[in-house]
């Protein structure tokens, strides 16, 4: 089901783009990643707005009061929270629902890149069964894995004086850190738990993705980098990029929420 509905169609679209750009798989990954980001942009915009509203809610005086007041009565607390959501015009699912819709597409995109690269006999055999029998796509495989100085099916290294430098893995870690740092909303209060979680993610996510870029196919590293850059552009378009967060010692202040009229 997952293969038929998500991975195989994305793999074929990726191969179609590969054909359009003259059998350059690196270019195809870049275009494909940007394309998917564009298609899912409305969902992401909703998610960003929704999560910012939820974040800002944490510093709302009335929200904090009802948390204290109905600490022992979960049912009443839920009722009061719903009332406040309504009054402030916040949909509590507006941050997670678009995210849930996007996730299969993003994971599918990642899997389709791995599938199309087909770096082993078994993977190539699976790819032959996944390619649609029209549009000349069957003639495209195995794909040309050479792009610039890279073999897209292998981890990337630039050799200088006999030492392999993982340039793409470093770029993945840097762009992931920057994206996370400048797009994470400032904490609503010093005790804000979600902010603490965000801080952890900002620290560990670049390490995790950098590790993958270091160990796995460089085609995936290109995907991570373009995805990070596209994410930055998306946040910038929505005016949600805080470049000052990159400077040390900056403590941005959160604006209070306005009640819906």
């Amino acid at each position, binding site marked *: 089901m997952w293969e038929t509905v998500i991975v195989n169609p994305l793999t074929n679209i990726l191969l179609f783009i590969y054909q359009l750009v003259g059998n350059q798989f690196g270019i195809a990954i870049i275009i494909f990643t940007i394309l998917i980001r564009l298609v899912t942009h409305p969902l992401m915009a909703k998610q960003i707005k929704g999560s910012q509203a939820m974040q800002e809610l944490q510093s709302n005086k009335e929200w904090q009061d009802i948390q204290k007041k109905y600490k022992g009565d979960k049912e009443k607390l839920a009722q009061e929270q719903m009332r406040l959501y309504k009054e402030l015009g916040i949909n509590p699912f507006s941050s997670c629902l678009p995210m849930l819709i996007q996730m299969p597409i993003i*994971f599918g995109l*990642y*899997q389709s890149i*791995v599938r199309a690269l087909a*770096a*082993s*006999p*078994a*993977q*190539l*055999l*699976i790819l*032959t069964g996944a390619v649609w029998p029209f549009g000349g796509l*069957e*003639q495209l*495989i*195995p794909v*040309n*894995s*050479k792009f610039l100085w890279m*073999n897209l*099916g*292998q981890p990337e290294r630039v050799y200088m004086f006999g030492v392999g430098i993982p340039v793409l893995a470093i770029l993945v870690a840097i762009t992931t850190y920057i994206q996370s740092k400048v797009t994470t909303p400032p904490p609503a209060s010093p005790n804000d*738990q979600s902010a*603490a*979680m965000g801080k*952890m*993610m900002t620290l*560990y*996510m670049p390490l*995790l993705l950098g590790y*993958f870029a270091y160990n*796995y*196919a460089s085609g*995936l590293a290109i995907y991570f980098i373009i995805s990070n850059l596209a994410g930055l552009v998306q946040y910038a378009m929505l005016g949600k990029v805080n470049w000052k967060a990159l400077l040390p010692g900056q403590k941005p202040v959160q604006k209070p929420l306005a009640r819906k009229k």
Partner: protein
Amino acid sequence: MKTKLLLPIVALLALGLFLAGCATGMTPSSWYGMAADAEYAYVSGGLYVYAVNLETHAEAWKFQIKTSVYAAPVQTEDGQLLVGGYDHTLYSLDPADGSENWQFAEARDRWIGSPLAANEAIYAPNADYSLYALDLDGDLLWSFKADQSIWGTPVTDGELVYFGTLGSKVYALEAATGELAWEVETDGAVLGSPVLRDGVLYFGLFDGALAAFDSRDGSLVWQEALDSWAWSGPLLVDETLYIGDGAGNLSAFSLDGELLWMLELNGAIVGPPVASGNEIIVGTDAGEVYFVSLNGEDIRTVSVGGQVYGPLLPAGTLTLVSPMPGSQPDSASLFIVLDENGAQAWDFTPEK
């Protein structure tokens, strides 16, 4: 607070497992490769290379590879057993006890195709686009960088070494120096090994063709279309070429490219046909092994239960078959052995 901080850690771990699973693939990367001499079968079986005594059916030794190994082992003229792993290392083993003679670790990608051992040299194709020539001590003589990965074993006439690439090219190199003699573009990728006879090279092409090239300059002699992709090169017996394709056809061609006969078998044919006595044997992904007379008129079929992708291995009157790992329900056999009547004589399951 602590519980909430666990959430991102769990999320990161889950993401990590997902990415790793997708990047590496949850299924085996290939099918097992096999070779045999009079006494032993040698099998590249994932994490280990096994030597199995063909008489006692017992494991003689096993050699562990850092990641995994699938390319069929190859024996050199001086009795070394060569095996290339997915850990980018080519190993020379002593076939008597599995001890390591030497290793060559300068390649930057997997050893998917088996090396060719000929004329006191080793010509080893790697997925890092390079063909490496080594002496029998494992020292590098020369290397040649091609346009794309090389998955098929080269052939040589003593003067030149010939091979094809996934980038749809055929190369001829000076065997002694690695200098390029000629290169030609083909219509499709070359995954398998060529056959060389009387100055003509015969390749199976992945765009669905059998092609013949002049070994002196690479000029195309003839090319005949198949119904689907050709994963492996052809088998040459006497004056006839036998080749399987992705549509499940087993075709026989004369050396002039004339189609002599074609059989529609059940399932795609990935591995090359092999010869045994007056028959050729071929496996399909429908889990069938076919014993076909050289004229294509008599056929015996044996069902082995799992997809057969790798080459079959005739050993005397026996035939070793290694179905795709995980494709046989309730079986952990590395390979099964068919007798001359096609009945299963015994199987080998490694000890855990």
